[in-house]
């Protein structure tokens, strides 16, 4: 299985298959529990989101602060399953893909299949290593949430593994 190196879009993610490795270059938007809650509340009210999620990739991550001379602190993935209740709605609204660690619910798998998305796993518990692939960090919205705010990470060759592909195939032993 060939490694995909470069950017991701609606077209090329359809061809990705489980276990395939990707070295992604482009932008990632960090969002975790509270940011998801707010995004979904805005969608429910029919309001405009503070950033356009169309064709974007959300990375479940709450980084440590950047110390002097650092682009970003430690920035590994958080447990994806806590975002399961929000993900189908975001995919429905045009989100391209998600990145995190661990299993997803059957509802999320079905939504990934329906909207031809992909769920990636990245190196869990390796925040210092993953920081080496981040070249810029910019605050996007929800500054008051601290580590849970939305940041745009500009990344190069960020290592990903296809954990659920657009056909709904899944790398994990079980899915609950």
């Amino acid at each position, binding site marked *: 299985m060939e490694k995909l190196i470069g950017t991701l879009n609606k077209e090329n993610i359809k061809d990705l298959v489980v276990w395939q490795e990707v070295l992604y270059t482009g932008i990632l938007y960090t969002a975790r529990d509270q940011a998801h809650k707010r995004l979904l509340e805005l969608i429910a009210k029919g309001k405009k989101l503070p950033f356009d999620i169309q064709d974007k990739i959300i990375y479940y991550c709450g980084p440590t602060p950047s110390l002097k001379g650092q682009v970003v602190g430690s920035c590994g993935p*958080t447990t994806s399953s806590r975002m399961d209740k929000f993900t189908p709605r975001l995919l429905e609204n045009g989100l391209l893909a998600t990145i995190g660690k661990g299993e997803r619910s059957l509802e999320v798998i079905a939504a990934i299949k329906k909207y031809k998305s992909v769920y990636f796993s990245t190196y869990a518990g*390796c925040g210092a290593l993953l920081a080496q692939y981040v070249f810029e960090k910019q605050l996007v919205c929800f500054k008051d949430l601290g580590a849970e705010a939305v940041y745009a990470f500009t990344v190069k060759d960020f290592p990903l593994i296809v954990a659920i592909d657009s056909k709904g195939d899944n790398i994990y032993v079980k899915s*609950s």
Partner: protein
Amino acid sequence: MRKISSELIKNKTAEIAIKANTKLRSDVLLLLKKSLAEEQSPLARKALTAIVDNARIALKQKLAICQDTGLPVVFVEIGNNVYVQDNINQLISQGIALGYKQGGLRASIQKDPISRESKLAYAPSITHTDVVKGDKIKITVLPKGFGSENKAQVKMLNPTASIDVIEEFIVQAVKTAGAGACPPYIIGVGIGGTQDYAGLLAKKALLKPITVKNKQKQLADLEQRLLAKINKLNIGAFGFGGKTTALKVNVLTYPTHIAGLPVAVNISCHALRSASIII
């Protein structure tokens, strides 16, 4: 009475909070490297290599090993001949906040667990204080990430439950944790006491070195059997499969009541971090 200054307690706590978060425990690193040497699956090897690299980068660049710098759980053993002017629990929390700020560690504490609208903070820590004999203070910081803490379980079994039932509950807890809590895991088990005390034992079990065999043969055998069963679950490093789902199982026991058998499981991610200092 030996007087220990509040300033010293705060500064030393700050120092080990940073150390715990940036320098992976040597026993954990040793077992990770051993697992890497023994693992066959290419993906599991890739995962274990990344984990070992991560520890090296964190130490070199003074970065947190994991962005989840945890809810700091602190164990304090204070000698009965020590005098501290201020409230020790408050001093520990202040020291944690100082260290977390200086070390660029994450403020992950939500002061209002219900509304969840408070600004995130570094502290308070969860501090367990024991009085021991002597004129020293020993402080141990265990930054507990919540990806794994969320997978903790306690079950009140019947006193007549067989060892098989106990083992089944523990293995099932790991199976339920699945890939989401950063395997390979270190499994802390507490058996006996009360519901809350079993939970505390399970957490304390994570502080025991994981390269040392349990001195009690019966428990050493139990730990071995559990580890073998857990490593057959094929969850593997990062959930990528393989035989390295857990590095070690540590069991602590305590006397319990005739009517019960509390069993607690506390799972640690591969980044099991802790550091101690004696003042």
